């Protein structure tokens, strides 16, 4: 178990034309479950492969504890990896697949046997040990891959979208199981995914990546509640955060956010934050689950509120939630209401905005102001 430190890590392909990873500084604490989250092509897998040693960085350093491992071959790093395709060797039985890393490291035979049995029990694959991978289902193969990865008790466990090939139900189950396993083994883990739900539920911290750069690193709640940019704000959460262009105006009472068909007067404490933006357009962001409809739903603890008028355009009834699409001016705002709520279409509603969960972003650099 070690701390993993990446210093200004870069990977360029095609003579610098493609900047897959473009200067990443990140410390993964000892025993931490860190999720690298981002859309495909953002460089998260490349980062993982550099930590594993399968890919060598163009520039920068990788440390495991105090040891510089930047150019060390994978076999000398004491790492394990769960691949997206599982990469369970088809010519070996399950037992041999799991025992293989131990055999290479020259463990005594009875020790190997003991460990394979231990890990097989842990992952409930005891009865599969003398089968070939071709005789297993996707979920079972996944378990074998995880078993093989933890049997050696690695310093660092790397997972590259391990759940993306499973069906939805199995994915939810394995999500919890992998997280529990990691908590039990306390192994430093880097987990790559493009699924924000996986990231939120599994990670101790989430590192959001975009175009080779780290945008925000923090615990799930922080990334969710205090996104530092529009990209992070919209990538996490479903349905996506509502974004509206508003202009900051000033009158005798204080600042006002002026939208297409609404005005939101702001309390005094917003003034210092927004004073540079007076008469400029900013982007207001608010999550669908932080909105309420007057007379239909209520969220407790809303201290400061503002009202926006809208017309119901469409309703998605999901059973557990109801998502109301309301037309405000020309824009559609989505409101997520808990439970099955009956909202008639084309009815005029008053949407209540909780000012303390509202985000405001700079329109130019898309960074968060509030």
């Amino acid at each position, binding site marked *: 178990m070690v701390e993993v430190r990446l210093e200004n890590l870069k990977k360029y392909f095609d003579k610098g034309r493609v900047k897959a990873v473009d200067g990443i500084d990140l410390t993964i604490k000892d025993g931490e479950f860190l999720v690298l989250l981002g859309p495909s092509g953002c460089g998260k897998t490349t980062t993982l492969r550099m930590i594993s040693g399968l890919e060598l960085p163009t520039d920068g350093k990788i440390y495991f504890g105090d040891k510089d491992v930047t150019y060390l071959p*994978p*076999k000398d790093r004491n790492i*394990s990896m769960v*691949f997206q395709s599982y990469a369970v060797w*088809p010519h070996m039985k399950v037992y041999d697949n799991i025992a293989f890393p131990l055999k*290479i*490291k020259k463990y005594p035979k009875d020790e190997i046997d003991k460990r394979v049995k231990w890990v097989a029990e842990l992952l409930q694959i005891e009865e599969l040990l003398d089968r070939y991978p*071709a005789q297993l289902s996707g979920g079972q193969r996944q378990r074998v891959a995880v078993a093989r990865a933890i049997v*050696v008790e690695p310093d660092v466990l*790397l997972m590259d979208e391990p759940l993306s090939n499973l069906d939805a139900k199995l994915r939810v189950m394995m999500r919890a199981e992998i997280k529990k396993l990691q908590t039990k083994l306390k192994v430093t883990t880097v987990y790559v995914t493009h699924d924000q739900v996986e990231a939120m539920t599994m990670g101790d911290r989430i590192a959001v990546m975009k175009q080779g750069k780290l945008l925000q690193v923090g615990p799930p709640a922080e990334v969710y509640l205090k996104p530092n940019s529009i990209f992070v704000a919209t990538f996490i959460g479903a349905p996506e955060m509502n974004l509206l262009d508003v202009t900051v105006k000033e009158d005798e009472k204080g600042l006002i956010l002026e939208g297409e068909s609404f005005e939101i007067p702001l309390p005094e404490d917003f003034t210092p934050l927004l004073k540079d933006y007076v008469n400029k357009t900013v982007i207001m962001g608010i999550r669908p689950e932080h909105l309420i409809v007057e007379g239909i739903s209520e969220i407790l603890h809303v201290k400061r509120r503002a009202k926006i008028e809208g017309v119901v355009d469409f309703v998605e009834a999901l059973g557990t939630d109801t998502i109301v699409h309301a037309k405000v001016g020309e824009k559609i705002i989505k409101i997520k209401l808990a439970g099955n709520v009956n909202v008639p279409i084309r009815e005029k509603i008053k949407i209540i905005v909780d000012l303390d969960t509202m985000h405001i972003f700079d329109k130019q650099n898309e960074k968060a102001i509030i």
Partner: protein
Amino acid sequence: MNDETKYMLKQLAFYTFIFVVVAWIVVPLIVATLYAFAAPKDYYDPNKVIPLHFTAKYVKTILIHLGAWEAIKNSVVVALLTIAISFTLGIPAGYAIAKFIFPAKDTIKLSIVALRMFPIPVMAIPLVILYIRLNLIDTRLGVALAHTAMALPFVVLITSSIFAGVATELEEAGMVFGLTRLGSFLKITLPLALPGLAAAAMFTFVMSWNEVFVASVLTLSHRTLPAQILSIMAGSSGGAAPDYYKFAAAFIMTLPAMLFVFFARKYLITMWGISLK
């Protein structure tokens, strides 16, 4: 016509087709085998299509007195040498083409195949001169090298497609779990590629076994089977040999190759009892 008759007719057509294809290959083999052992009296009797009296005399004569047995041994040695050399050179090349990106990859691939466009007779005289200088003339190694030159392009292309079929992640998993790149190749990729490599070996073996021109030109006392048979049939016995000798020779030529392919095929299918994917 109802569906049942349609189905029956389809089945009939299908099996007729299969029968014709099989007969196309098997009938000549049966005829050659029958006539190889036919007594000359039966063979020349216009009233008998299938001979009734058999003798192993001619097969024996060719094998023992006319040097075919020695030639079979030469052929096996040459074919195995060809496989060994062309695999030693071809596997790394095939692997590189399958797994790495490097400049002029397609040009290299194309030029490998283009080498086979040169007609061998054009190269025969320079090749003989070169072999005399290198002291390779009339040696089994010499023939094997020439056969390697002919087989290598195909070995490279076949092995590259085999290695491309083995997922890179499997090999990377080997490296992550403690193997070197070479170790991972030897313990993960190679075993998985084995059925395909066996097919490539089979191809190389059959090519070397059948090749007659280069073998005839480059050797005199260490002839491979086709070269030896050719010289027996066409000249050294003083004029063309009688027909039943030819059939006996054909039988000797085909039998070992058939046996080899038969066993290699079985090995191919039963490899893991499963397909790779």
